[in-house]
């Protein structure tokens, strides 16, 4: 590698904005500043063992899990149909999937607040059709809805990219060897699309479990996820030590789930976006 120097600016960038902050978080999480100076402590991690905080973590993981499952159930068939040969105007649909991602994330979430309001457009329509009103704003359902809406493209795109690259002759070979459509799906398309599914799950679950904007806007003030808890330690409580400890715990959970994912991905031969 003769041109290693080309990578230096990026390396410097990464050290300043990724490596150093990571060490700072690690440092804050295991130290406390008292009148006698800085000393080592496990106090912040012990504080997390309080059932209140454990509950917050469990709720965050569960809501992220629900969103991921719903995204998968919606996104997989959609990606499959989209990648199918018979589908005309494929590019238009792919564009329509991507376009919302160009819009500011906050803006998209705010618009759902308006839509879901007690007297908002959605309920007006429901009333006009004399259907029962939907009051889900500031509930867990609204948070899950917000997550699914925001992260669905991250499920569709990796699956689409894997399935659309599948060699047609593999499907024909399976038919040739006696598979009907269902068997072709079960034995060939599904196993070969798994790398995309795993990428999709990772790309939906990670941002969903760490979000604090969706939960605050659509879940209301009384509703707390781990992201909100961390945010509050830094911005209002000023307990940087506890905030850092929570961040470390969250990071470990993410690293662990990514480790499990990549193990599966290796077994199925890779090919996803990650």
């Amino acid at each position, binding site marked *: 590698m003769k041109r290693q120097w080309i990578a230096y600016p990026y390396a410097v960038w990464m050290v300043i904005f990724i490596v150093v902050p990571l060490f700072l978080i690690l440092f804050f999480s295991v130290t406390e500043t008292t009148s006698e100076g800085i000393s080592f402590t496990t106090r912040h991690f012990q504080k997390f063992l309080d059932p209140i905080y454990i509950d917050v973590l469990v709720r965050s993981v569960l809501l992220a899990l629900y969103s991921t499952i719903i995204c998968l159930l919606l996104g997989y068939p959609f990606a499959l149909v989209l990648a199918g040969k018979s589908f005309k105007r494929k590019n238009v649909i792919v564009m329509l999937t991507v376009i919302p991602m160009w819009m500011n994330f906050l803006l998209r979430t705010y618009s759902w607040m308006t839509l879901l309001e007690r007297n908002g457009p959605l309920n007006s329509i429901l009333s006009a059709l004399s259907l029962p009103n939907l009051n889900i704003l500031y509930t867990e359902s609204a948070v899950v809805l917000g997550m699914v809406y925001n992260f669905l493209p991250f499920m569709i795109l990796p699956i689409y990219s894997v399935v659309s690259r599948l060699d047609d002759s593999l499907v024909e070979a399976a*038919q040739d*060897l006696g598979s009907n459509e269902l068997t072709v799906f079960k034995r060939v398309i599904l*196993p070969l699309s798994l790398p995309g599914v795993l990428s999709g799950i990772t790309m939906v679950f990670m941002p969903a479990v760490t979000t604090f904007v969706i939960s605050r806007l659509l879940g209301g003030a009384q509703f707390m996820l781990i992201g909100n808890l961390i945010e509050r330690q830094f911005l209002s409580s000023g307990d940087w030590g506890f905030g850092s400890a929570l961040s470390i715990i969250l990071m470990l959970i993410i690293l662990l789930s990514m480790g499990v994912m990549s193990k599966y991905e290796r077994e199925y031969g890779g090919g996803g976006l990650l």
Partner: protein
Amino acid sequence: MTNEPILKLDNISKSFDGTSALRSINLTIRKNEFVTLLGPSGCGKTTTLRIIGGFEEADQGDLFFEDKNINHLPAYKRKVNTVFQRYALFPHMDVFDNIAFGLKIKKLSKLAIEEKVMYMLKLVDLETFGKRSVKTLSGGQQQRVAIARALVNEPEILLLDEPLGALDLKLRKGMQLELKNIQQKLGITFVYVTHDQEEALTMSDTIVVMNKGLIQQIGTPQDIYNEPENAFVANFIGESNIVDGIMHNDYKVTFLGRLFDCVDKGFTENESVDVVIRPEDIKITKAEDGMIRGRVKSTTFKGVHYEMMIEGVVAGDAEMMVHSTLMAEKGAIVGLGIDPFNIHIMKKGLVE
């Protein structure tokens, strides 16, 4: 070949987006026959194969399998298996599972599957490869797996779509012989698609030469080579000199400014014809002994023979290609001798 017919294509036509790919194809394939569909790319040979395999449906015409119409029978119900051009092995399975794929769908017992797969692995000389990932195999090995995967289902007909195209010359020659052996050993009908005329001549019982969606000639390799029915076939199979001629009467033809005896008859008087002569059928003689004379324009050494281009001195600007083990110097005036039975007369206008 007097075996009973197994597959019949009756007046099959097919077009894609208004471009016609096959035009009224009539073909009967017999049991245990090795049939090769031969032609340049875009001639419709692969489309024909895909219609037999059930991956395309003909626009017109009928397809009969043992006298049963199978026009609308889906691929997975046909007693036909295919070896695909780029093998199409399942990348998420090892060699054993690839070969066992069809058997598992038929829900055979584990023991039976194991036995059949092992037999196939032995047949294609990959006995120790069962647990290997197909991605780690060389092209030739993948090819064998693809053949084993198709054959293990004991198809009535095996379709092969340019199966040796991706292999190097030496491997290809070896596989040609091996395929022919397998076909004779198992007694299965093979329908083989290739653009390689040498491959077709080596392996086939029957060759079907195709061009532009039309069948040009059906015959044994010897027939196709020695008695091409039209200029396209003559040109496509081996190398040929094709010159204009006039057929005066039966057994009398004029070309290159001279009257020749020949062995063809049945043309109208003074009909314009194509005269085809293989380069190896022209003898180089002393100038005064030749039936026609010419000047050697170029001489190229080709290994077994010399390839010489002879400019017509007597007959204007016609050039003849001659293959001979005897060399004539460039610029020399030589005579050319052609035996009557090596002069092939063809009707004009059969090729579009």
